[in-house]
């Protein structure tokens, strides 16, 4: 990005590129489908009736707006910035994922699709997809890595209770990236009936832009709420990034406010230096996977390497292409927090605020803990509490050496 940028909110271009990132790197069989989807989404997003319908479901079913909460005890404890949590963990199903699922399921219905498929890592997107499918009476197949099924059993059962079929993916590294491969293989096979409901701001165009638009409700609400609470915009925003949907949802409405600093927090796993992490922006390089060009964890031959994080939701070797572009353009700072730091943040938040964060936003909180004490008391910081930690209690118990 060597030319002056008038707006950070103008992307992607008509071919789905954010700078060199994004695009449509898919098999020919899928191209006509994603072109159809692009058209259908453009039509729906310009249609007042579609937006009204989505607003209805978000208010009465999801429970929006989610509160913007002043975490007073945490702020006092850290002794610096005034910290707010955007409480997206209070949404129905316990995470931000349903904002996007609600939008896409309404679109799938408009397109006349009769079968929904999705990939999931931690299971939060799978649960949100299974939920909206139950609500709309559509059959749902969720692809989930065999390794993730093992470490996220409560969510697997939840999906089954909601009527979804959970298909264990045993290929490759048996985690989120392989679940996405398998969902793409399903889609290539069932082109007429099936809608692929991608859970993050990755995949071929138009998914990164569409999922971002559906998640931007987080940032739009935050803007209104902070104006009401403080009479001004925040000074900084913090969110975790796996694929990056909750972060872009918070950041995007603020990207053109030059005075707001933004921090995307990746999972450093056992530490970047160990090679066992999921920090594709901090330690990866540009490559092409799952339909888009973005930063990837890969070797010198262009083979994708396995990610590691205690948080299954951040355990992905890629990142949404818009984040790749925001990194290169230096608009957003990307940092990384280790498993250990995230666990400390998890414990602190539970004791001080009475909130069990999901392990994903516990990474964001890990960075808040580092940053806040260095800032003045009038610094307004908003962190996206994008999911609740009930799903993670077994993982946390295991990491703390506690038998349940």
């Amino acid at each position, binding site marked *: 990005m060597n030319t002056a940028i008038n707006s950070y909110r103008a992307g992607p271009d008509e*071919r789905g590129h954010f700078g060199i990132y994004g*695009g*449509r*790197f*898919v*098999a*020919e*069989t*899928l*191209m*006509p*489908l994603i072109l159809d989807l692009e058209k259908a989404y453009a039509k729906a997003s310009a249609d007042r009736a579609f937006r009204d319908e989505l607003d209805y479901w978000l208010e009465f079913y999801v429970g929006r707006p989610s509160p913007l909460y002043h975490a007073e005890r945490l702020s006092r404890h850290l002794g610096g910035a005034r910290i707010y949590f955007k409480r997206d963990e209070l949404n129905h199903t316990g995470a931000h994922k349903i904002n996007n699922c609600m939008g896409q399921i309404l679109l799938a219905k408009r397109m006349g699709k009769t079968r929904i498929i999705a990939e999931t890592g931690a299971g939060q997107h799978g649960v949100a997809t299974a939920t909206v499918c139950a609500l709309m009476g559509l059959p749902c197949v969720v692809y989930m890595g065999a390794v993730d099924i093992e470490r996220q059993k409560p969510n697997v059962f939840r999906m089954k209770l909601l009527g979804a079929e959970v298909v264990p993916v045993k*290929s*490759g590294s048996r985690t989120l*990236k*392989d679940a996405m*491969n398998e969902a*793409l*293989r399903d889609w*290539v*096979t*069932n*082109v007429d009936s099936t809608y692929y409901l991608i859970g993050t701001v990755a995949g071929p165009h138009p998914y990164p832009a569409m999922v971002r638009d559906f998640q931007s409700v987080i940032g739009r609400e935050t803007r209104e709420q902070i104006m009401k609470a403080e009479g001004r915009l925040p000074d900084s925003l913090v969110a975790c990034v796996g694929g990056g949907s909750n972060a872009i949802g918070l950041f995007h409405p603020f990207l053109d406010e030059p005075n707001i600093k933004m921090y995307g927090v990746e999972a450093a796993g056992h530490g970047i230096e160990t090679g066992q992490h999921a920090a594709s922006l901090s330690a990866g390089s540009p*490559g*092409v*996977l*799952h*339909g888009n*060009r973005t930063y*990837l964890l*890969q070797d*010198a*031959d*262009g*083979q*994708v*390497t396995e990610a590691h994080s205690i948080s299954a939701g951040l355990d992905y070797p890629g990142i949404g292409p818009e984040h790749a572009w925001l990194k290169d353009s230096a608009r957003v700072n990307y940092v990384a927090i280790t498993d250990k730091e995230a666990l400390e943040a998890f414990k602190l938040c539970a004791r001080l605020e009475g909130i069990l964060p999901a392990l994903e936003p516990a990474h964001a909180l890990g960075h808040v803990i580092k940053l806040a004490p260095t800032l003045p008391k009038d610094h307004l910081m908003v962190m996206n509490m994008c999911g609740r930690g009930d799903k993670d209690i077994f993982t946390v118990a295991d990491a703390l050496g506690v038998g349940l």
Partner: protein
Amino acid sequence: MSAGRIEKRFAKLKHEGRAGLITFTMMGDPDIETSFEILKGLPAAGADLIEIGAAFTDPMADGPVIQVAGQRALKAGITLTKTLDLVRRFRATDQETPLILMGYYNPIYIYGPTRFIKDALTAGLDGVIVVDLPPEEDEELCIPAIDAGLCFIRLATPTTDDRRLPAVLAHTTGFVYYVSITGITGAAGAQTTSTADAIKRLRRHTSLPLAVGFGIKTPDDAAKVARVADAAVVGSALVSALASSLDGAARRSGATVEAVLGLVRDLAAGVRAARKEVVG
């Protein structure tokens, strides 16, 4: 000159009044030397054109058989550089049989498209099939490859309708690979009648040779395709035959090379016996 090998081979097939057999095997599967031994034996076994698989960790258009083959190959240490080495070694003894590399874009992108095109041509590669590069992403590899004389063979599928076909065919050289099903490699085969209809449709849009693949498993399947198309592509069936010949630790056995080449001979007999019908 290298575009010439594919063109010449299809001209020869036309002259003989028959369709060709295109085989696919994964380079490095189950180990680099065995995959080369198989590669070297393919022309004599009856392969008219040869697709060589370039392994990738995330082959999103492939079924389980080719996925696992790619994993075996990566475990055996295959890389794109070593795959091009095999092409060079093959060319030391065979200057006629066209070689087409089939794979995914990321390894080529990391290798560097410009450097890849140069090294591929020097090694003696004739064409590439890059599964995840649709016409929408032509600038980086497809157009420079064609300009340099490396064929860019595009997949057309049942979802590629008449409105889209001209865009798909615009930058296709060598031949067109018709994927006869909507699905992944190794899935159930297509109905012969729908394939014949699709071939007729494609013929209205292009004069390039038409190969048909995905789901062709037996000499009989191959013969059916050979009656309507210019070539039949067989991949998963060969990779399956290889896999069944391996020992418990996924290493080659005494039967591995022959398991593949024997099936190629049968498939070639099927293709050669099929009398080509004039279509379209």
